């Protein structure tokens, strides 16, 4: 190979390389844009705020006292669910929510790190003691869902499974008339 040939082949190699690098960059940028787009249009974004709370005192005052845990129908027709994770159960152990309704899940941990995962949905959040987790959800299908703890929380972790029951919207509204916080515990 003469030096001129060598020079030309270096140039060709560099050009092919640049072309491929451009394609790679386009792929990467495309993916990032897709993620941003999906976040806005499918309403799946990380919780907007960081809120703190004292895990060893949540049962004394504030929004996670026992009488406030469960589902409540808000004035605007949305539903708020408040729950806690603790070694080794969720309270309420069975969460009841209506179908086709915007729901805000607010939850925290009373002791160690736990996680809430509702199987068959993309509802999935960590419960870190000291911080409040918030997640928006909406169920289109009524029925029972499993809600295991998805983070190691010590030796009883394998037994930490909760449930979610999605019921008809009108059923839920009827039950909500009695006031208080709803759950499907013991049903």
């Amino acid at each position, binding site marked *: 190979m003469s030096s001129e040939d060598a020079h030309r082949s270096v140039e060709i190699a560099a050009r092919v390389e640049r072309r491929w690098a451009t394609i790679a960059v386009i792929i990467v940028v495309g993916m990032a844009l897709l993620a941003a787009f999906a976040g806005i249009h499918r309403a799946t974004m990380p919780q907007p705020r*960081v809120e703190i709370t004292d895990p060893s005192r949540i049962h004394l005052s504030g929004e996670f006292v026992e009488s406030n845990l469960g589902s409540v129908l808000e004035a605007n027709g949305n539903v708020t669910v408040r729950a806690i994770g603790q070694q080794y159960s969720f309270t309420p152990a069975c969460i009841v929510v209506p179908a086709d309704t915007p729901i805000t899940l607010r939850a925290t941990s009373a002791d160690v790190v736990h996680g809430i995962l509702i199987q068959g949905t*993309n509802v999935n959040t960590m419960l870190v003691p000291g911080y409040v987790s918030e997640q928006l959800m909406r169920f289109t299908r009524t029925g029972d869902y499993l809600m295991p703890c998805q983070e190691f929380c010590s030796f009883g972790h394998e037994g930490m499974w909760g449930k979610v029951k999605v019921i008809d919207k009108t059923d839920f509204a009827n039950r909500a008339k009695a006031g208080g916080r709803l759950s499907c515990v013991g049903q």
Partner: protein
Amino acid sequence: MLANRKLILAHFWLAFAVFGFALTLGAWQMFIRSPIGTWLSNPELYYRSLTAHGTVMGYVFPTLVAMGFGYAISESALEQRLVGVRWAWAGFWLIVAGSIMAMVPIALGRASVLYTFYPPLIGNVFYYLGVVLVVVGSWIWVALMSVNLRVWRKAHPGAPVPLAMFANVAGSYLWAWTAVGAALELLLQIIPVAAGLKNTIDAGLARVFFSWTLHAIVYFWLMPTYIAYYTIVPRAIGGRVYSDSMARISFILFLVVAMPIGMHHTFADPQVGAGFKFVHSAFTALVALPTLLTVFTICASIEIAARLRGGRGMFGWTRALPWDNPMMLALAFSFVMLGFGGAGGLINMSYQLDASIHNTQWITGHFHLIFGGAIVIMYFAIAYDLWPHLTGRELIDIRLIRTQLWLWFIGMIVTTFPWHWVGILGMPRRMAYFDFGDPAIAPQALSVTFSAIGGFILLTSGIMFIVVLARGMRAPLVDAGPYRFAIAVHQPTTVPVALNTHALWVALMIVLTLTNYGYPILTLATTEGTSVPAVYVGAQ
């Protein structure tokens, strides 16, 4: 020139011995929580085993491989005796001491907190101190790599640093900086609590610190594999590196963007702001870039090998590749697993898709496929390639080697594909047993059984690997010649200083870490009332 063979062999043997141990635990775990196992009457044993498996596979095994391989690269690529051999041995023994110190409390069930620590759960203090010692031992290696390169530069002013060494040092710097996150978590947060000096801890801050380490550590594990892709495979199959500068750019990109992306592990966490989650998500997308570049360069490099061997046609050249060469086989398997694993990684990268699989078995499947599959199979290939040069003896069991690689590949696919699938079904991670008798999760039973079978295929392959190496210690003597690395099609005579040194990129790495981690860490560390009471495990 491999002058300190004993040092390198010691690292490799220790690495593969602990690997065999942790692999056995892993196979047992797969079995015991599957429908073919019986439920453990003491679930703590599962978490104990999981802690040991993770600690060894995450901290000890890949670190030792990177170190041993790093010493080999330094001596053979620079053609210069290792400077600071005594320090190297000190680092090795620190790792031995740290591993033992960590393993004793784990074995006694006093530190079943998993290798990711999970404060406010707190285990025995010696577990954490042991991990710190392992990291400190590896930092000695980082310093030695830097020193050796400096010594070589003095002797060869302005000369291009051999690619293997350039990448090796990049990997060592990446590790030095990425380990800082976990080190801060251990030294500032966990160890004071485990030692009883404090009894509260900020669990959210700890998770942020750990995410600093947790993602880039994967790229540290990946470094030896990528070095093998670029500098061993083309030579072993008779090809050339397509582009030396592209290789350098890939390693530089890893150095810069592997670090400031760790918060994609905390997408579902309540203590990290949504803005930082987005920034980390975008940078995570960037990290696909060096891999895409690598895939191109390596494919081009093996195409060169194929054409040199007479391959023709658009794709026909693939038939001309030396498929019976273990290195070729390992590379092909590694690429297939990297492809699937990388595609999975792109899913984890976006907040929206991650939400459906976060902390499910999908994630375990994902990193086993990438690390246990794509990365570790190249560790095997590296060992096979280096062994004759280290022992002065020939590896004669080529057929066994091929079978071993095939089994590892098949085992990894059989293990991780069903694993991904049950993850999509919502099966959570790290549970000692599952009630597959319940109709709600009964459909997962078959997949989990397949995974468990895959685990035993992997164990078989792992045993075969160790047998091959052990037999290699007693095989007939052979003169393997000097250990060489692949050369580029256009071997550079001069390299721009930015592509020949690391300073600029290390600086960028540190600056990006500060921009992407500085504020979240600072604000959590200074906010009152975020520390929560520690929960000591096994405290009866």
